[in-house]
């Protein structure tokens, strides 16, 4: 099970190699990865449907209770199948779609990383592992939205999406940690078994707010919805996969996953219902107002996400079932519609609904897929979308609280959906407002497979819902609702109130379609809201952070190296002094200082060092100062040898040598050495800082010799270097084995420093302004 999650990452690393070998068609081969995952997950289908839960644990950092605990139950299998199946279709589609793009291998790499992270997210039942996969999806989404990184809009959109979802992610982490502290475990299964204790705990409110912040930012709930329409800057396959079918559903998944643990309280229900309700209505209204096809779909997606949150908040078992059914229905038709948009965009060069019409003549297959998807979206009998809508209406009718308001809200958004479905299906493909003679071609086969499959599935699932969808979704709803209830899916319920409401929705939707032009013209006095809404808050906050950063940078890093060093040294001295003061240590313990122990050669080394330091202070030449510093460095290395640390000494020698070599390389390119005179009070300040630091370090060293270290570490390493580490060089064994994680951190820092140095060297500053 670990492999099925990691396979995506492993293959992602291989993508550039495969791309080089296969050339342009590598996308089709990579599509086998999600297909393989799908087949593998399908083998568990029967066992899961019977109610079995399969879990497997891999240790990661067991001492911190952080493990890869993978659990496959109804909910995770449902999402896993959705992710891998969509992944397969999207990869095939993208293989054709991305042909014109440069660096398409990177695209598939990011997409694979995303898919693997998404799989890890839905299969993890350890909170910390779940969080890490959660962040990885934000991260890969950032790379994908910003894929056309030459365009400023897509860079900004990527950054915005990342900042919003990642700060939500941090809130989520905080929530998880508090939850972990309250329950003393990070394993979701164990938390579930004691969830009453969580609900009664005083920190319950904080946990709920933080976790919901994570879910709301990811699933674009009001007031965090603004990043999603901007994220449409991504290539269309990404919009279809991440920002409609899977990633934005991660928030829904999280809410569903935590419903049994945290749900059932009023705060949980009302927060979800209010946020979901506002999002649903806002998305529906904004969708009608836009004319860019992708923006329209983005806002209807926001609206659909609102419906899902609302239904999960309503909390009755019927509502939960309806949410899960609608989730599937929405993924199918919205995925198809996004891909259809991609086809239209690619073939006609436009996405504006006002410019497009009568496309059926030119693109019959895309057209058929669009009709099917639109029927499902509008909720027409017997499509799967109809079943979803019926269930939602029924759930709203039988909700425990506020059911009239709920019902009206749901119907309003349903009406908007119908109008938009007609707009796309009829307006774009059949209605013929001829602007000029045009001739478009149908999209290539590879770009038809995915939308047609998804759209046809919308019909097939509708017709045979009882056989195909019911078994798994029953399990899903049971996991979310934490109870065993049968779910029955039929498209025909007889003539009842819900059917009447469905018909009413269709009629109102058709009416809305005919008056939509009027609605678009009314600005609805919304300009004020747009200018002062969440987007403006986001921009304002970003500006504020930037201004603060500039302020503190100009204070601490004002371009004078001496100032940087003074700040660092002064802060370090302050910390040292506060420790000394806190533990009430003697500042100058002289008792243990024995002059007879000092060896002759040590004195010589010391003399060398002192002379070098003296010369260093006196000299005005760059070369002399480098050489004198080299002398000090070598002296230190020799001291390392005296006291039995050959590894450290070798490293020190090499580094000193390299420093001199590097300096020689650039010596003739440096500008002449200039001295910037100090003001006398600065001079005094620096002298005080230097002397204070020197005194403190001396005292610390004396203290160390006075209180010999009482720790088992030395003995442990001496004893176990050979037994456990299978090496004789303790220093090396500590570096690569006992404390390898530290080394890992250090080499990561080195790599980042190298990137920083390169950036600085390549940065060509024009006087006065940055280029």
């Amino acid at each position, binding site marked *: 099970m*670990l*492999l099925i999650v990691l396979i995506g990452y492993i293959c992602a*690393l291989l993508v550039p190699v495969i791309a080089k070998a296969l050339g342009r068609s590598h996308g089709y081969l990579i599509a086998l990865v999600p297909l393989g995952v799908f087949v593998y997950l399908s083998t568990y289908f029967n066992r899961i449907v019977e109610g079995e839960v399969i879990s497997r644990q*891999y*240790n*990661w*950092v*067991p*001492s911190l209770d952080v493990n*890869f605990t993978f659990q496959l139950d109804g909910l995770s299998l449902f999402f896993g199948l959705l992710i891998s199946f969509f992944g397969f279709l999207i990869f095939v589609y993208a293989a054709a779609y991305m042909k014109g793009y440069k660096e398409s291998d990177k695209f598939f790499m990011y997409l694979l990383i995303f898919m693997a992270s998404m799989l890890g997210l839905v299969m993890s039942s350890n909170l910390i592992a779940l969080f890490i996969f959660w962040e990885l999806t934000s991260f890969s989404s950032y790379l994908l939205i910003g894929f056309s990184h030459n365009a400023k809009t897509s860079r900004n959109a990527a950054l915005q999406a990342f900042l919003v979802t990642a700060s939500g992610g941090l809130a989520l982490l905080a929530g998880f940690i508090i939850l972990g502290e309250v329950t003393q475990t990070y394993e979701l299964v164990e938390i579930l078994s004691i969830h009453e204790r969580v609900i009664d705990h005083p920190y319950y409110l904080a946990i709920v707010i933080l976790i919901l912040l994570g879910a709301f930012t990811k699933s674009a709930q009001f007031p965090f919805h603004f990043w999603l329409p901007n994220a449409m800057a991504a290539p269309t396959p990404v919009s279809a996969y991440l920002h409609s079918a899977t990633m934005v559903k991660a928030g829904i998944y999280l809410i569903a996953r935590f419903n049994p643990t945290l749900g059932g309280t009023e705060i949980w229900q009302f927060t979800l219902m209010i946020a979901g309700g506002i999002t649903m209505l806002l998305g529906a209204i904004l969708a009608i107002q836009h004319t860019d096809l992708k923006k329209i779909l983005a806002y209807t997606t926001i609206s659909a996400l609102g419906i899902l949150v609302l239904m999960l908040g309503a909390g009755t078992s019927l509502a939960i079932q309806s949410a899960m059914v609608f989730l599937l229905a929405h993924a199918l038709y919205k995925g198809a519609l996004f891909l259809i948009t991609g086809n239209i965009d690619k073939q006609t060069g436009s996405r504006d609904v006002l410019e497009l019409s009568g496309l059926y003549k030119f693109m019959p297959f895309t057209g058929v897929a669009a009709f099917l998807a639109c029927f499902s979206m509008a909720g027409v009998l017997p499509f799967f979308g109809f079943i979803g809508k019926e269930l939602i209406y029924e759930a709203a009718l039988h909700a425990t609280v506020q059911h009239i308001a709920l019902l009206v809200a749901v119907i309003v958004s349903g009406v908007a959906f119908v109008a938009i479905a007609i707009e796309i299906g009829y307006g774009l493909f059949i209605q013929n407002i001829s602007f000029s003679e045009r001739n478009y071609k149908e999209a290539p086969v590879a770009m038809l497979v995915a939308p047609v499959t998804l759209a046809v599935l919308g019909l097939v699932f509708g017709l045979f819902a009882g056989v195909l969808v019911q078994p798994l979704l029953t399990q899903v709803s049971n996991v979310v609702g934490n109870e065993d209830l049968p779910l029955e899916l039929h498209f025909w319920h007889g003539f009842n109130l819900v059917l009447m409401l469905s018909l009413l929705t269709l009629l109102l939707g058709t009416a809305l379609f005919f008056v939509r032009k009027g609605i678009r013209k009314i600005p609805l006095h919304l300009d004020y809201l747009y200018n002062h809404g969440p987007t403006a808050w986001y921009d304002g906050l970003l500006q504020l952070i930037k201004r603060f950063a500039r302020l503190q940078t100009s204070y601490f890093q004002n371009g004078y190296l001496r100032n940087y060093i003074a700040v660092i040294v002064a802060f370090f001295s302050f910390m040292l002094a506060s420790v000394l003061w806190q533990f009430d240590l003697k500042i100058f313990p002289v008792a243990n200082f024995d002059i007879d122990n000092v060896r002759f050669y040590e004195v010589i080394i010391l003399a060398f060092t002192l002379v070098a330091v003296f010369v260093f202070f006196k000299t005005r030449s760059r070369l002399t100062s480098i050489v004198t510093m080299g002398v000090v460095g070598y002296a230190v290395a020799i001291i390392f040898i005296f006291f039995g640390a*050959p*590894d450290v000494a*070798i*490293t020190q020698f*090499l*580094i000193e*040598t*390299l420093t001199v*070599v*590097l300096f*020689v*390389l*650039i010596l003739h*390119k440096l500008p002449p050495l200039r001295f910037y005179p100090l003001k006398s009070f600065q001079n005094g300040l620096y002298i005080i800082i230097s002397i204070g630091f020197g005194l403190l370090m001396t005292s610390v060293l004396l203290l160390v010799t006075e209180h010999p270290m009482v720790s088992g570490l030395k003995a442990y390493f001496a004893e176990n270097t050979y037994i*456990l*580490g*299978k*090496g*004789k*060089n303790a*220093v*090396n*064994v500590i*570096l*690569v*084995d006992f404390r*390898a*994680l530290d*080394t*890992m951190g250090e*080499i*990561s820092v*080195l*790599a980042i*420093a*190298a990137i920083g*140095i*390169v950036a600085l*060297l*390549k940065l060509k500053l024009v006087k006065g302004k940055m280029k």
Partner: protein
Amino acid sequence: MNTLIVRTAIKILTPLFLIFSVYLLFRGHNEPGGGFIGGLIAAMPLTFHAMIYGARETKKMFKINTMVLIALGLLISASSGLVSIFEGQPFMSSLWADFYLPIFGKPGTPIMFDIGVYILVVGIVLRITLNLSEE
């Protein structure tokens, strides 16, 4: 700098330096040495080469993308820690094969980690020197 003696010497010394650095890398587990020191030593002849012939010539001769080296080193080191997870042990637990190779010793994840460090250090030193001398 650019004298015949130095030119000839660096040609002969480069392979020696490289072999010595690999020797240091593998002996590190038992004697002074290891990936970091080995990497520094391996980078030295190339640095000298850049000093004498110029960075462009060095790049042409060794045809290495230093950024790839850095990334590869990090990847090797990090994945050496992942091996143990598949064995059901915590991240970065050391594992050894149960056979000996002559000279090399027992192959295990610590040496894999050290090889990663070695490659990374070579990459970083070269990246910095080549960039500095390129300007």
